[in-house]
């Protein structure tokens, strides 16, 4: 069963310093080729949960992780984290291209550094393909060698998504990818997320039930480091079992 899902999480606990950030996250299954939203107010542990899935949280000197997370049936804590992160891409809340590099190099650099392409031709193809998949190619094709910092916030975020896609991940983790972006830019990214699930699993952290409604197949409600409940979007947003979820979805707090 676990081989058929992207992630399976059991008894996961994470501490940052002495703060118990994730408290016994269990029985969570993230199926393949879906958009899975992790919804919750700020400070509920959404980013930490995402960063545990690609073991980024372990790069923090103050982090401690316990529990079991299976990725495609394999225990992530017995995998090489560097290799895991190549298969599980990550998009940060704040668009973070390499500002001193060109649009082209932002994608070409990791491709070259990780030895994913041999010839210039191959790199060119990956750059173009990734930009197209991120719905950015048409906007930048005439200025691939301009600095990435010249792009708008929304374009920068799509460039960062293209950079992650260039590594051909099977899962893309996105931490509130539209919260720093204007409305038009945000809509483009939401459209992109829906496209991407054809090829990969997308796990998105969001604090708004509205965004979860627009993009998700599944929604998990995280509150104060605990999973309140999770399930298909229709159930979670229309008829949740838990009162806390009902209140959150209704916008009564958060």
């Amino acid at each position, binding site marked *: 069963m676990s081989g058929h899902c992207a992630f399976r999480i059991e008894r996961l606990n994470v501490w940052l310093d002495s703060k118990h950030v994730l408290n016994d996250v269990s029985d969570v299954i993230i199926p393949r080729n879906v958009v899975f939203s992790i919804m919750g107010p700020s400070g509920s542990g959404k980013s930490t949960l995402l960063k545990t899935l*690609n073991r*980024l949280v372990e*790069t923090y*000197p103050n982090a401690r992780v316990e529990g079991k997370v299976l990725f495609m049936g394999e225990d992530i804590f017995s995998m090489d984290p*560097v*290799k*895991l*992160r*190549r298969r599980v*891409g*990550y998009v*940060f809340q704040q668009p*973070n291209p*390499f*500002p*001193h*590099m060109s649009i082209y190099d932002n994608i070409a650099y*990791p491709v070259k*550094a*990780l030895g994913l392409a041999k010839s210039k031709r191959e790199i060119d193809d990956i750059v173009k393909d990734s930009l197209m998949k991120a719905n950015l190619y048409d906007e930048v094709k005439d200025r691939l060698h301009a600095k990435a910092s010249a792009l708008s916030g929304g374009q920068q975020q799509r460039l960062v998504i293209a*950079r*992650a896609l260039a*590594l051909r991940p099977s899962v893309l983790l996105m931490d509130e990818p539209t919260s720093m972006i204007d409305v038009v830019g945000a809509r483009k990214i939401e459209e992109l997320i829906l496209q991407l699930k054809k090829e990969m699993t997308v796990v998105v952290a969001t604090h708004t039930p509205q965004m979860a409604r627009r993009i998700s197949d599944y929604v998990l409600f995280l509150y104060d480091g605990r999973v309140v409940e999770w399930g298909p979007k229709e159930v979670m947003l229309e008829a949740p079992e838990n009162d806390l979820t009902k209140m959150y979805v209704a916008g009564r707090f958060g």
Partner: protein
Amino acid sequence: MIEQGAKFFTAPPPTTDLGLGGIGTVLQGSLVLVATALAFAAPISVLAGAFIAFYPNSFTARLARQLAEVVVEFPTIVIGLSVFGLFIVDLHWGLSALTGAIALAVVMMPYMTIQISEALRVPRAMFEETLYALGMSRLRTMLFVMSAGRRGLLTGLLIGMAKGFGETAALLFTVTTSFNLFFTSFNRPVSAIPVLIYFYGLAPYENWREVAWGAAFVLTVLVLALFSLVRVLARGGMSR
């Protein structure tokens, strides 16, 4: 200096006879000393600076930073005396270009280490997590950060060099005051511009004092040139 023209840069300084001579020996000595000191100090400073920038909270990094900050404030004459005591008296290496360079390296290292660790702090904060998230190894992440902060790295090395050219006290014990010796090998003594300025500036001979002033002018231009370069680099910000 104007009287002598280009010869001022190549001729040895005058002895007690008349005539002006030049600062050829000490200019060469200073260049050899600073270059050799840089060869010792630069790799250590770059590694130490990178370590402090990447593991700021580790015990080793805190210790290294404390040590650098203490040595920066240390009287350099004590460094000179210590190098003299250890290498020349205890190890019998004799006055040589090598011992002079070691003393200079000790003086230069903390300046460079602190500057380099500061220069790498910002690019590390900017890029480290992004690079890890892209599946980069720790080593590759460090190399990327160093490359992004390479102007700052270079600035650190230049500041160390400027410090090295001007340093006098650390050299008083470790270079020769026979100012007419050209560099021949690392185990033969050389001298340096600031030491010449000290001895010739106080001399009772008019021509010696003139040479000292000329040397002071050359040293000032040299250090100003290095700092101008530092300013140009600093203005450029992060480099591609």
